[in-house]
Structures are given as structure tokens and as C-alpha cells.
């Protein structure tokens, strides 16, 4: 079993495993015709970032036999998304929907899912809870903080100033987890390293992102990374100023042939395929699906030309530990940047820990406020 589930779902998981052996074609024939899958994106499909990472995976799903894909982009998180999902169901006959923006989940996906109990809603990023949320809804997400930790390890080796920069959209748990993992990775190499963070306030503000990049570079940061929708601006700005970058969402290596070190990339094909196969086979909805490097939900960009052999060796070693499933990023004792203990000594949060999905602190070594 590759997908990680919470305790409550061991039973369902067992069921799933058993039915996975059923011949897919037979069941689909019984269901009659192709499976129509709907994808909704909150932004433009080609944003060099988050939405593009989804759209690229959707294009792979499109190639699968017996699948018809319908897509809609720039769908705001209002009644518009509720109606768009409903339209896919009613007008296109979609029976599996991928609403890919976090903000779609509550209340929009939940509302529509309650009305269409025979349609599957596989939401990206949400936190599905049993009893509280409908059974035809599932949430999947990737532990991209593992790849961000590796970004940090490489950045820690490559930084000369021991100052790293991180441009973030909003201080929300998913962002903080990446920022903290990046910082911990770098400090595992050199405990004196600090990461300066700048919050721009929204997911796509190119001018602010460029300003933030310049400010960070001016204050001495020599490796930058980010968590905004499109890292293109950051990577290009850094390259122009001769500073190194780690990518996010997708590979931006082509934008910075000199300074691109490595990057944290999504691989949505893995969870998409699981949901599509479950739907085709008529298996129960996968309500909670998470995975990291090991499960193939996320991947790292190939190392750029600047990365030293030592950095590669160190990062590869950590990556191997992650692939074996033993590595713990957030283990006690862990202090926040105000000096208070946030994870006590002896407590190790595995990636699956729900506590990590509620992260609300900056770890020691992060310069910034939330």
C-alpha cells in the first residue's frame, strides 16, 4: 500500500486493497462507457506553478484509456465553483471531480458533494474528517516539505553568506511547513544559517514578489526559494542578480540555467491515477490520501550545474532515508524563533501527523513574524 491513511481508514484501505485486483475493464463496461473526469483550477492553467502542475497531470490522465477529461480554469472560490462542478456533473456527465484549489473545499465542495452523493470529489489540499464530511469526498495532498527539506540541505551547502530567503504568500500551515522544513534542512548542514521570510499577502503578485526577491538579495541572502503560485518571477529575478534559487511546484531550471540548484516539484499523476482507478473499478472513495517522495507524490528537480559533490552526497543520503520511510523532519526538541519549545524532546511527528497540518509557528532560524 502506498497511500498513507489515518487510523480510521485502515478498514477502508483493506477493502480497497482487496478490490484492486478486480478487472478494471469489466467494471467500467458494467458502468457503461467512459469515465468523465472534471478538473477545476483557481488560476490560469499555465502559470509556471501550482495550477500548471495540476494541468500537466490532468493531461496525463487524459491519455488514459476510457477517460474523458473536461477542464475549467480561473474558477473563483465563490458560487462559481459550486456551479461549475454541478455543470460538469449535469452537462458533461462527470462522475469524478478534481477541485484543485485549497479554498474550494469548505464550503463549496462539501455543499455540492452532499447533493450529488454518487459523484466522487477528490479535493487537493483539504483535511477530510470522518463523520464530519461526506463519504464521497476525499482529500489528497503531497508532503512537499520533504522536497523543501532537501532544497534546504542543498541550499545550506551552497550558501556562502549563511542567509537564505523565502518568499511566501500567506502565513498558513502549508506554507509555514515548507518554510520550516527548508530552514531545518539548511540548518542540518550549518546551524548558523538563518532564513528571512517575506509574506507578499497573496498567491500571485508578481511586482511584490520581484520586490521581495530584491530586498532579500540586498539583505545578503544568496539562495532563494518560495511558496507562491508562480515562482517564475522569483527565479528570473534571482538569476539576473546572480543569486541561487531552489524551485517550487514545477521545475524552473530552464529559467535559471546558472543558479538553479534543485527544486520541490509536485507529481499529481500519482494521486490522480489512484482516484481514477478507484472510480473505474467501482472501489470505495479514497477519503484521505497523502504521500511524499516515497509514494511518488512529490519529486525533486535534477541538480543544477552549481551544486557541489558534497551537497549532492548529503542530499542524496537524506533522500534515501526519506525513501525508506524512517526520516523525521519535525522532531523534538524543536524551538520556534521566539525560543519557546514547540515540539518537546522525545516527540517525533511523522509526516502523517495531523499536528503538522496545523502548524502555526516559525522554527528557530527563521527571521520574520507571523
Amino acid at each position: 500500500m502506498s497511500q498513507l491513511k489515518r487510523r480510521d481508514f485502515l478498514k477502508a484501505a483493506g477493502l480497497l486493497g482487496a478490490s484492486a485486483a478486480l478487472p478494471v475493464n469489466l467494471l467500467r463496461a458494467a458502468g457503461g462507457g467512459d469515465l468523465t473526469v472534471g478538473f477545476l483550477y483557481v488560476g490560469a492553467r499555465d502559470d509556471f506553478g501550482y495550477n500548471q502542475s495540476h494541468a500537466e497531470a490532468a493531461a496525463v490522465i487524459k491519455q488514459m484509456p476510457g477517460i474523458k477529461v473536461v477542464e475549467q480554469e480561473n474558477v473563483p472560490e465563490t458560487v462559481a465553483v459550486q456551479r461549475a462542478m454541478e455543470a460538469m456533473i449535469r452537462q458533461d456527465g462527470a462522475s469524478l471531480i478534481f477541485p484543485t484549489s485549497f479554498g474550494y473545499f469548505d464550503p463549496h465542495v462539501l455543499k455540492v458533494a452532499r447533493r450529488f452523493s454518487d459523484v466522487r470529489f477528490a479535493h487537493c489540499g483539504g483535511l477530510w474528517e470522518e463523520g464530519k464530511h461526506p463519504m464521497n469526498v476525499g482529500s489528497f495532498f503531497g508532503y512537499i516539505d520533504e522536497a523543501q527539506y532537501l532544497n534546504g540541505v542543498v541550499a545550506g551547502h551552497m550558501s556562502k553568506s549563511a542567509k537564505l530567503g523565502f518568499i511566501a504568500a500567506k502565513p498558513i500551515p502549508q506554507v509555514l511547513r515548507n518554510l520550516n522544513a527548508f530552514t531545518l534542512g539548511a540548518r542540518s548542514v550549518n546551524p548558523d544559517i538563518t532564513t528571512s521570510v517575506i509574506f507578499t499577502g497573496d498567491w500571485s503578485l508578481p511586482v511584490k514578489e520581484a520586490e521581495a526577491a530584491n530586498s532579500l538579495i540586498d539583505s545578503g541572502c544568496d539562495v532563494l526559494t518560495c511558496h507562491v503560485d508562480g515562482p517564475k518571477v522569483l527565479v528570473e529575478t534571482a538569476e539576473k542578480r546572480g543569486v541561487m534559487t531552489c524551485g517550487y511546484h514545477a521545475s524552473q531550471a530552464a529559467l535559471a540555467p546558472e543558479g538553479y540548484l534543485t527544486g520541490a516539484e509536485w507529481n499529481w499523476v500519482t494521486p490522480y491515477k489512484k482516484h481514477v482507478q478507484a472510480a473505474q473499478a467501482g472501489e470505495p472513495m479514497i477519503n484521505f490520501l497523502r504521500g511524499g517522495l516515497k509514494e511518488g507524490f512529490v519529486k525533486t528537480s535534477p541538480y543544477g550545474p552549481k551544486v557541489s559533490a558534497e551537497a549532492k552526497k548529503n542530499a542524496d543520503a537524506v533522500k534515501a532515508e526519506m525513501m525508506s520511510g524512517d526520516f523525521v523532519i519535525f522532531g523534538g526538541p524543536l524551538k520556534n524563533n521566539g525560543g519557546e519549545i514547540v515540539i518537546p524532546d522525545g516527540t517525533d511527528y511523522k509526516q502523517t501527523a495531523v499536528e503538522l497540518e496545523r502548524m502555526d509557528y516559525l522554527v528557530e532560524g527563521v527571521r520574520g513574524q507571523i
Partner: protein
Amino acid sequence: MLKPWLGRAGVLLLPALPTLCALVTTAVLFIAFLLIQGRPAWQAGPLVFEGAFGSLFAWENTLMRAAPLMLTALCVALPARAGLIIIGGEGALVLGGLAAAVTPLWLPALPAWPMLIAMGVASMLAGGLWIGLSGWLRQKRGVNETIGSLLLSYIGLAIFRHLVEGPLRDPNSLNKPSTPPLDSSYQIGVISDSFYVHWGLVAGIVACVLAWVLVRYSVIGFALRVVGGNPRTPRMLGLPVDRLVLLTCVLGGGAAGLAGMFEVSAVQGSANTALISGYGTAGILVAFAARHNPLAIIACAILLGGLEASGGLLQRRLGLPDATTLILQGMLFINLLAWETLTRRTGDWRLWLRGHWIAAPRAGLEEKGETSHG
């Protein structure tokens, strides 16, 4: 004789002539644009209609999107009656939504109805205050209300973001910073399962009808016509100009605030940045396309809602980019506003029709008709 009947029909239809011209021109331009782009133009037209009005679901989709637009359009149309051009409805909407979302937190637990009324009042106060401030600044300080309301709207949005993602944020709202969720009893549902549109639609229509009665039949409405027509006459008549202007601003802002309340309690369930989705800006266009007539606003809001509703079908069936809808909307409003210039003539044509086709030709009228026609 056929002529008088045709004449009467003409007189009735003349006010709609600019709108009809605009619709036709938009259709022609839109199809031409798609043809030039080598896109399936002939399929797009019927699909727009199907997506907007082609089925019960399409109607639900359209009306749901139209509901907030009716209210935000009033935020423009009412002050326009007093001669003010207010374009800051977006700020009033989000602040109204925020006020509605925090009311249950700050009041003791109440049954659903009193609480919903309190939320509605709070949202209207917030919105009314914000637009009222624009009106007050204009009357008392001479600050132009168009720019003033735009600036206040931006400031309102910044305050909203700051509060929702800062001091008023629910710590449990994790990755989507929001105010604490409304209790389910304070959430407004849909009219019925077979007509899946939330009650905001009814509120929008009622508000438009009330506004129509106000401007058409009340003394205030009459006074407004005087104030909006000319800045000097009303003062000579001793009309309380400042108070009238302020009243329209507060009422308009209240309508926009109410739209925010419905967004929060019927759609989002809490206040968050998803409230900022351009309803206020779209309302400006709806109001101008409706020539600030509250009843026409209902129709125009439905038209715009329909275009938005149809955008999905264009994307999914024809693979057109989402921006197609933006272009179509832009073309429609450009045409609606441009053809407005015909209204200068329609009055003359109407007289001419009356003179020539309806009434028995008499010498005096004939002459008048000829001159105005020429």
C-alpha cells in the same frame, strides 16, 4: 389600418432600441472575433444561450450569479439618481460581509431570525457607512465621490484582508484564513431543492423593486430628480440636498453591504478573501447598462449572470479560454454604453411616430414631427 398598431408597438419598443442594437452588435463582433481567431464561432453563440438560459439548471446558475449583482448595482444606481457616480461598491460589499460574519460572535446566542436580521442590519450599516463616507466627503469637503469611493474601496479591502487574516482570523481556519464559521442555523439556504438558488435572489429583486418605488413614486424620489438634474435649483427650492445625497449613498452602500451578508451566510459560511471577487465592479456596469433604473437592473444583472454562467460550457465544450467570457462581457458593455447615445434621438422618434403613425395626421403635429425628425 395597420399603421397605428405598428406605431404603438414602435413607441413601446423605442426605449429598448439602444439595448437591441447593442445586443446585435455584440453578437456580430463576438462571432467575428472568434472567426478571425479561427475558433468555432457558430457553435459558441448557441452554447452561450444554452449555458445561460437553456435549462432549469442554467437558469439556476444564472440567477445565483445575478443575485449579488442586483444589490451591488443599486450601490451605483441610487447615488446616480442624485447625480453621484460611485464606483466603490466592492469595498462596501466585503466590509458588509465582514460585519455580518462577526455579528454572531459579538452578540449573545439568538434564534435564527433575529440573528439574521441583526446580521443584515450590521452589514447594511457597514456598507452604508463606507459609501456614506464617500457622499459625506463630497458634500462637506468637496472630495470627488468617484475617486473618493474608489480609494475608500481599496482601503476597505486592505482593512478587510488585514482583519480576516489577522485579528479576526479563526485559528482553526488553517489553510484558508477566515473568520469563525457561522453556526448552521445562521446560514441562509436555497429557495427549494427544485429551484436551487439562495434567498439572496429574492432579496435582490425586492431591493430593486423597493428602490424603484422610492425613486419613482416617493417624494424623496421626486426631490432626487431635481437634485440629480441640476445642482442649483434644489437649493433654491430649499431642498435638503446634503441629506438627500447622503441618503442615496447610505442606501446604496447598504445594498452592497447586504450583498456581502448573503455572500457570507448563503455561500461562504464565513468571511474570507473569496468575498473579493469583483461583484462590486460588475455592479457598476450593470447599473450603467440599466440606465440606473432599478427594475432594468434586475434584467441586466440576469444578462451578466447568464454570460458568466455560460463561460464554463465554452471552456469545456469548445476548449475556448476562460477569457472568452471576459471579452464577451467587455464587448457587451462597450456596446450597451456606446449605443446609449441613441437615447438622445429616441425621444424625437417617439414623437414623430405618435404624430405620423398613431394619431390622425393633423397639420400642427405633422409640422412638429417633421422638424424634430430632421
